[in-house]
C-alpha cells in the first residue's frame, strides 16, 4: 500500500508535466482531493480486477500481457468481454468490434462531459480523457454540479478528475496483474458480497444527480429496458439498449417538461 501511495505521488508530478501545467498548490490539492474521493470506489474495483486477471491467466494470457491490456485499454467491461471471447490465437476483429460496442457508452459520456470542458485547451483534455471511466466520469460530473451549486468557477475541476482516474488506473493495472499472478488460488470473491460494491457506488452517484422524479423518468426507462435486454439477449448489449432508450425517453419527455424544474 505504501509503495502504491509513493507511486501515486510520483504520478502526480508526471501527469502535471504531461498535461503542460506547472506544479501549483491548487493543482496538487485538487488532484489529491480526486485521489481521496476515489478510495471507497477501490473496494469495488479491486475484487473485479483480481477476477479479471485470474480469468485472463486461465485463458492463456501471459503475466506481461495482462497489464499491457488493462493499462492501455483501461475499460473493464470490454476486457471482461474480450477475455470471455479469448482463444489462442485470438479472433482480432471480433474482439475489437465487441470492445467498441461495450465502450460505445464513452461516446455519450464524452458528450455529457463536453460542456464542462469548454474552458480547457485540447492539449489538456486529450490526455485527461484517457482516464475517463464510469467512476472518474461520474465523480467528475457530480463534483462539477456540487461546485456549480456553490458558485465555484470553473465548475469542472480537471485535476480532480485526473486524480480520480489515476487512482482507478493504478488499482486496475496493479490488481489485474496480481489476479493473473495468483490466479486459481483465489476462488470466487463474489461469494463474499463484493458483487454489490459497484451497484452501491452507482446508486450513491445517482442519488447525487437526483433532481426530482420528473427529471428521473428517463432513468426508469433505461433501467427497465436494460434489465429486459439483459434477461433476453445474451452478451453486453443491455448497457447500450438501456442507455439509448433512456436518452430517447429524455428527448420525447422534454416536449412536455417545463423549462425550469419545480423543486
Amino acid at each position: 500500500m505504501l509503495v502504491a501511495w509513493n507511486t501515486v505521488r510520483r504520478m502526480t508530478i508526471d501527469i502535471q508535466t504531461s498535461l503542460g501545467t506547472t506544479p501549483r498548490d491548487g493543482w496538487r490539492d485538487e488532484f489529491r482531493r480526486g485521489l481521496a474521493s476515489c478510495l471507497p470506489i477501490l473496494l469495488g474495483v479491486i475484487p473485479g480486477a483480481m477476477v479479471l486477471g485470474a480469468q485472463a491467466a486461465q485463458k492463456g494470457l501471459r503475466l506481461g500481457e495482462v497489464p499491457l491490456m488493462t493499462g492501455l485499454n483501461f475499460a473493464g467491461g470490454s476486457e471482461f468481454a474480450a477475455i470471455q471471447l479469448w482463444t489462442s490465437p485470438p479472433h482480432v476483429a471480433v474482439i475489437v468490434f465487441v470492445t467498441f460496442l461495450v465502450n460505445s457508452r464513452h461516446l455519450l459520456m464524452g458528450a455529457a462531459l463536453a460542456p464542462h470542458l469548454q474552458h480547457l485547451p485540447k492539449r489538456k483534455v486529450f490526455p485527461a480523457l484517457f482516464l475517463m471511466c464510469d467512476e472518474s466520469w461520474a465523480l467528475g460530473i457530480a463534483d462539477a454540479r456540487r461546485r456549480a451549486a456553490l458558485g465555484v468557477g470553473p465548475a469542472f475541476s480537471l485535476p480532480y478528475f485526473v486524480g480520480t482516474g489515476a487512482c482507478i488506473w493504478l488499482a486496475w493495472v496493479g490488481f489485474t496483474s496480481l489476479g493473473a499472478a495468483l490466479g486459481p488460488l483465489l476462488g470466487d470473491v463474489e461469494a463474499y458480497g463484493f458483487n454489490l460494491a459497484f451497484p452501491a457506488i452507482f446508486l450513491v452517484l445517482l442519488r447525487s444527480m437526483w433532481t426530482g422524479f420528473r427529471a428521473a423518468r428517463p432513468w426508469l426507462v433505461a433501467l427497465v429496458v436494460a434489465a429486459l435486454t439483459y434477461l433476453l439477449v445474451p452478451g453486453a448489449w443491455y448497457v447500450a439498449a438501456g442507455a439509448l432508450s433512456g436518452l430517447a425517453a429524455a428527448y420525447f419527455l422534454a416536449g412536455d417538461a417545463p423549462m425550469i424544474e419545480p423543486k
Partner: protein
Amino acid sequence: MIEPTVLLTILLMAGVTYLTRLGGYLVLRNRTLGARAMAVVEAAPGCVLISVIAPSFVANNPADLAALFITLLAATRLSMLPTVLIGIASSGLLRALLG
C-alpha cells in the same frame, strides 16, 4: 516475448477504446445545445449508470435482491463509503444465510 496477434489485438482494443473516449467530446466541443438536446445530455449520465447496474435488479436469487434493496435504502441517506460497506456486508451475510 509477446505473440504478434496478441499484441495486435491489445493495441487495436486500446486504440478503439481511446477513440470512444475522444469521440463524444470532439463532436460536441464548441457547440451550444438547444433545450431538448440539453435534456438528453443531462439525462445521459444517470441512464448509463443505471443501465450498467440493471442486472442486479433482476438477480435470480432472493439474497442478492434483498441486499440490493438494503443498499438502495442506504444510498438514499448515507455517503459513499458507508453505503459500499453496507452493500458488501448485507450481500455477504444474506448469501451466507439464504444461500
